[in-house]
């Protein structure tokens, strides 16, 4: 989004000197509205004020969620000394990581199939994948619960991962499919032409070109899995509660400032992952990832 200042002075282009046009300046075809900066500012306020409030009150020494008394790290200390919450955080990271790896793998292979396989099945498969993407999460989540119960599968971290992988594959496939279809097949043919076998061509040429897209989609999936509530809620077992569920059950007993601390930490983790990935690829002169994230 461009926030470049509009030219302050505009000379009338159509009006001859001395002719009154009734306006301070003539309208131009692509004139920027003068309140654009204000409007943009308001959008950002709308975006970030709630988050900033969470961030700010996470350092409140008082228990109050309305009055800020003084700066303290009490709630963070409490968080790190609560083994149950740490266990939840670890469980969520585990789930997100496994989901990321598994769905990146399956999603990438699916994208290959959709773009490369010359089969009539590609179209229907594509539609099915998109259907999975747009179907209401609560329906799929309950369907999972019913399925696991019917099959007599005990709910656990494993079932949560299965649920997360299912909704994640579509995101990976969409990103990878875009990258693959924009990729020139001649590049792989060039590798074969220069003496690389099929496997070498994939390892030495295709994958290096796909990495940015794979990493980008993997990150997206990690973040989505990390804070997913609905699917997690219906597929989780009796063991450790993943973090979003833990937060939810904490709210049952009243909102404590500790939740602000947890929220802030979750934000920091998410943003750190995204920034780290951008940094990696900025260093490799690869603008692909930045474009994808934008």
């Amino acid at each position, binding site marked *: 989004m461009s926030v470049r200042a509009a030219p302050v002075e505009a000379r009338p282009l159509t009006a001859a000197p001395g002719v009154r046009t009734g306006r301070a300046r003539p309208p131009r075809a692509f004139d920027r509205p003068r309140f654009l900066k204000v409007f943009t500012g308001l959008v950002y306020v709308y975006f970030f004020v709630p988050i900033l409030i969470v961030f700010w009150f996470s350092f409140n020494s008082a228990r109050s969620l309305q009055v800020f008394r003084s700066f303290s790290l009490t709630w963070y200390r409490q968080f790190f000394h609560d083994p149950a919450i740490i266990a939840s955080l670890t469980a969520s990271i585990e789930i997100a990581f496994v989901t990321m790896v598994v769905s990146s793998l399956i999603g990438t292979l699916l994208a290959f199939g959709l773009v490369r396989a010359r089969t009539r099945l590609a179209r229907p498969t594509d539609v099915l994948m998109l259907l999975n993407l747009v179907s209401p999460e609560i329906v799929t989540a309950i369907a999972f619960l019913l399925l696991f119960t019917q099959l007599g599968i005990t709910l656990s971290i494993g079932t949560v991962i299965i649920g997360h992988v299912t909704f994640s594959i579509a995101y990976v496939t969409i990103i990878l499919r875009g990258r693959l279809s924009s990729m020139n097949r001649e590049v792989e*043919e060039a590798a074969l032409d220069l003496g690389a076998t099929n496997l070498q061509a994939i390892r030495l040429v295709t994958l290096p070109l796909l990495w940015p897209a794979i990493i980008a989609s993997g990150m997206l999936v990690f973040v989505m899995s990390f804070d997913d509530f609905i699917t997690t809620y219906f597929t989780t077992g009796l063991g450790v509660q993943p973090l979003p569920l833990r937060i939810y059950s904490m709210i049952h007993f009243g909102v404590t400032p500790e939740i602000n601390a947890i929220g802030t930490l979750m934000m920091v983790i998410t943003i750190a992952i995204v920034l780290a990935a951008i940094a990696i690829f900025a260093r490799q002169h690869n603008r692909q990832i930045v474009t994808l994230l934008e």
Partner: protein
Amino acid sequence: MSLSPPTTVHVDRVVKRFGPVTAVNQLDLQIRKGEFFSMLGPSGCGKTTTLRIIAGFEQPDEGDVYLEGRPVASVPPYRRNVNTVFQSYALFEHLTAWENVAFGLRRRRVPEPEIRKRVADMLELVRLKGKAMARPRQLSGGQQQRVALARALVNLPAVLLLDEPLGALDLQLRKQMQIELKQIQRTVGITFVYVTHDQEEALTMSDRIAVMNDGVLQQCGTPEEIYERPLNAFVAGFIGISNLLPGVVEDHAVRLQSTGQLVPADVAAYRPGDPVLLCVRPEKLRLEPAPESGVSVEGTVVETVYLGTSTQYLVELAPGVRLTAIENNVLTARPEDRVQRGSRLRVSWLPEHGRVLQS
């Protein structure tokens, strides 16, 4: 055949179909060692498909391809002694120019010191010594083109296949690269098979040209043969400008359909009564009030186009029947002597410059 160099590529009655479309039909080509061989034709004529069959990216439905005498039907692309310069260059974006050029040698497990030497020599040959560490996207179109060329040539293949490699360059750069490519080909002495739709490019660079249309070989010969003695109307029309006058064969002459005039021509290959096309190149025509010799027809100048080094005239013989004539603006030609629009005159040519083609 015994005196000419051995055949490097033999395309033997190859047929390739894509669904209902026959892309290449009964194609027979013998490409000799060390020659610059062009395949020329409009888009969709099967020239690129032929190139891809030689490279091994497509399998022929019928026929076979022989590289250095051995059939290669069952040989995958990575084990054929050919390399390709792709139309899109297909450079590896994630590797530097140097690594791009070294890719083929690495795959063939050439010792590292030799790789370093050969890549350096090749980058020097294509004048990219200073750009070795640049990535493709940091290079200009012409430079990328040269990396693609170096990457293929460094492997010293038996045949280098080039698929419209200059298509993406602007005119100026293309002209320069045409000469450079030809010089590089002479230096390395490798057989080049060059695909293009640009007839001027093919004439400039090739030792021999194969003209193709609709998957069928139309004519194969030196640029001069193709230009001066086209075998059919397609070749005559595709290479340069041609005047094609419909007529009927009579005794040692063709009776023009448009004017009914009888013009002498070599009709040895035809029988009287055959419908033919009389083909005359524009630069072989002379515009003059009273011809001294040769064949002449009368017409009106309907358009003159000044082209700098030459002037093009459009002469109407009969309604709808027009001849294009080109006269060079030589030292002695003065602007005031140039034929004016609307003037009646005679257009003449020597009988041997009129070529009779099947209509």
